[in-house]
């Protein structure tokens, strides 16, 4: 089996023994924060299962948007020293949850919108290029492929 394919499987499998170790440690020491992070990262997991096309790139994009939402609850959880009460309170705040779920949508929206924008820009570019080429062809034909019948004037 090729090395690249091995690495890919490993990437997808993702979980190694030290993952479990870190997770266990986090669970032991900051279960609240882990809960907040886990809940808030839930849309990513859902996206991963719902949209099989979503590649790493897409995941990364969504991660940044989710990260933006996660900053405040995680800090609150941090400041409360992982207080369970506070953590639960954080993940039950509707605004945070709505923002969290909307972040996925915003990520998608921004990606699509800019893709459309780029497409339009490219189309315009192609059109202009085409027009330039056609003009050049016409000029060349006029200059070289005309037997002199027309320029009698």
């Amino acid at each position, binding site marked *: 089996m090729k090395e690249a394919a091995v690495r890919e499987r490993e990437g997808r499998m993702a979980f190694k023994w030290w993952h479990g170790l870190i997770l266990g440690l986090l669970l032991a020491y900051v279960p609240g924060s882990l809960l907040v992070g886990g809940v808030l990262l839930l849309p990513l997991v859902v996206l991963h299962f719902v949209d099989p096309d979503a590649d790493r790139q897409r995941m990364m994009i969504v991660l940044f948007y989710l990260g933006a939402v996660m900053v405040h609850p995680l800090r609150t959880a941090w400041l409360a020293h992982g207080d369970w009460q506070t953590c639960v309170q954080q993940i039950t705040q509707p605004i945070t949850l709505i923002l969290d779920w909307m972040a996925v949508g915003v990520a998608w929206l921004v990606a699509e919108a800019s*893709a459309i924008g780029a497409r339009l820009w490219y189309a315009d570019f192609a059109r202009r290029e085409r027009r330039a080429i056609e003009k050049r*062809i016409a000029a060349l034909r006029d200059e070289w*492929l*005309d037997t002199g019948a027309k320029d009698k004037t």
Partner: protein
Amino acid sequence: MDYIQGDDSPELLIADRYLVNTTQKQSMIGGCPTWVAQDITATGSTWLALAPSMPSPRFSELMFFRHESVIGLHAHEYHNGALWVLCAHPPGPSLAEGLGLWSESQIIDGVIRPMADALEKLDTAGLTCRGIRPENLFVGQGLHKVVLGPLGVAAGATLQPVLFEPLCSAACHPTARGVGTIACDVFSLGVLVLSLCIGELPLKGLSDAEILRRRFELGSATAYMQGHNVPAGLVSLLEAMLSDAPENRPGPGDLITIAPSKLFSLRAEIPARTPLMIGGVEVRTPRALAWYGGKYQNEFLSLLQRKIISQWLHRELELSVMSSLIEQAGVAFLPSGANKAVDPTTMVVTRAIAILDPAAPMFWAGRWFWPEAIPQMLAHAEAGAFPPDEQRNIRGIASFLMTSPEVFDAPTLPALQATQIGGLAVAARRTGAKGMEQLRRLPYDMNVYQPCLSSRCLKERISLSAGLLQWLNGHLSEEEVSAEDIGRSGFMDDQMRTFLESHCARQGIVPLAQSQKAGLPSWLADLTLLAAAQRRFDKEALSSIARRALPLLETELKQWRSRTARAKRRAKLSQLAEAGNLTRFLDNVNDPAGLQKDRKMARQAEVEIAHLEQILEDEPNRKAVHEKQARNAGEFFSLLVGIVVSMASIWLEFCQ
């Protein structure tokens, strides 16, 4: 010097110096129309302006000939390409107006000695005079000294009357006499001396044919002197000078030392006692037989075949060598098959005549001529001096002589004829042309001063290339030559073309013999030739020619592929047409390097068009690429936004 003249002005200013009033014509001198010319740089001095229409081929040598008894040439000038000869006034009226009776000493001192001196000088220079005839000899009032008219203004012996010519050239048509030898001049001098002795022309009142008949019958000397009272001291001299055999005539050197009663011994020719009958004429000498043999060819041939001539020569004249030669010539007539192109009977007559009279001119195809006169005969034929069938005959003879000189390569051929035929063949080869073109070239190649023989400009006597170019430039209006004519047959006719080609060839230029053969349209070939001539001979603008060529050359521009190049060249073409430099005018269109570059660029343009079309065809592929790129760009942008948003969130969280 404001001598501005309109075209209708009767005054002509030659070389900005000699003013000729064309309304006041003088009597002809040397066979040329003559006017009085006033030298405007020196008041009161006048000259005679002669307009020679066919100058001698040796004119360039003859014009420097100076002798006290020949009117020297003062100058020769060109006006509009036509040759004008300026000479002093003759000392008095010509002898044609009255011979007068001269005494023996007057004749010796005033005619024979000075003329013999002049003839000897000419002979030393390898020239001949051929102008000793009454109307070309002038005598001062009260003097007894003849002065000869200017030399070289007429070609050879064309203008000599039959009476003044020896039999060997009198038998020919005037144009076929050539320049002859100094012995011919001695004969003419003899006739002059005789006329002055007896105070009138011998055989006066007889027609040329009758004169010839009498001379062949009796011999020239006897025919001329019979019944006249010739001073006894001159009889022997005249008999020698008027001898029909050139080798019997005294040379000019003998005549200079002439003294009264000097005797010239002469081997008398004994005529046959029993005459030979040919064509109903009694013939007593081989010379007369040769002459009548040419006249009655069929009878001559039958006499020859029946060996009557050889027997007659042997028995009556005791000429055994000639008799056996004649017999051989008759035998050669029997099918030999050496050259199929030659009619054997023609050949036999020619050979037999050459044997009978070695001094006779060449007889070929019913015509007496000297081979050296062929260019001149052709020139006269072109100028329309002969009826059409004779023109054809002359052309046939000329082309035969030029293309197959080996036919005449026989030991019996007289040396003079052999030399002349050889010279003619060399000249013909040197033209580098073939067929009709060669025939047309010959007169121009042999004579620098030969005026252009084109029927359009013959009377202008144009003998200078520059003059022809200018004349052509002035005679190309729409009325004279239509545009279709130019397109079809060019700007010039064959004679003009040949004239220019000959003049170019003399300068070592071959403008277009090859390219014309390569199938250039005739107008373009003409234009190339004119451009070459202009480059070499004439710096004047030829804008009229260029203007007429403009529409034709513009169609030629079609071979340029580039439209802008065409437009640029067209604009330049009309500019150059106005400037009138044909070379640059033509180079604007005939530019192989430019054309090649144009072709190359056209090819490049075609390649580029193909390439661009390929790009256009590839557009769907590129669209897919664009789609992918657009998606990537979208993702990248949203990633960027995501990073910014998270940074903003962190900043809000920690720094507010």
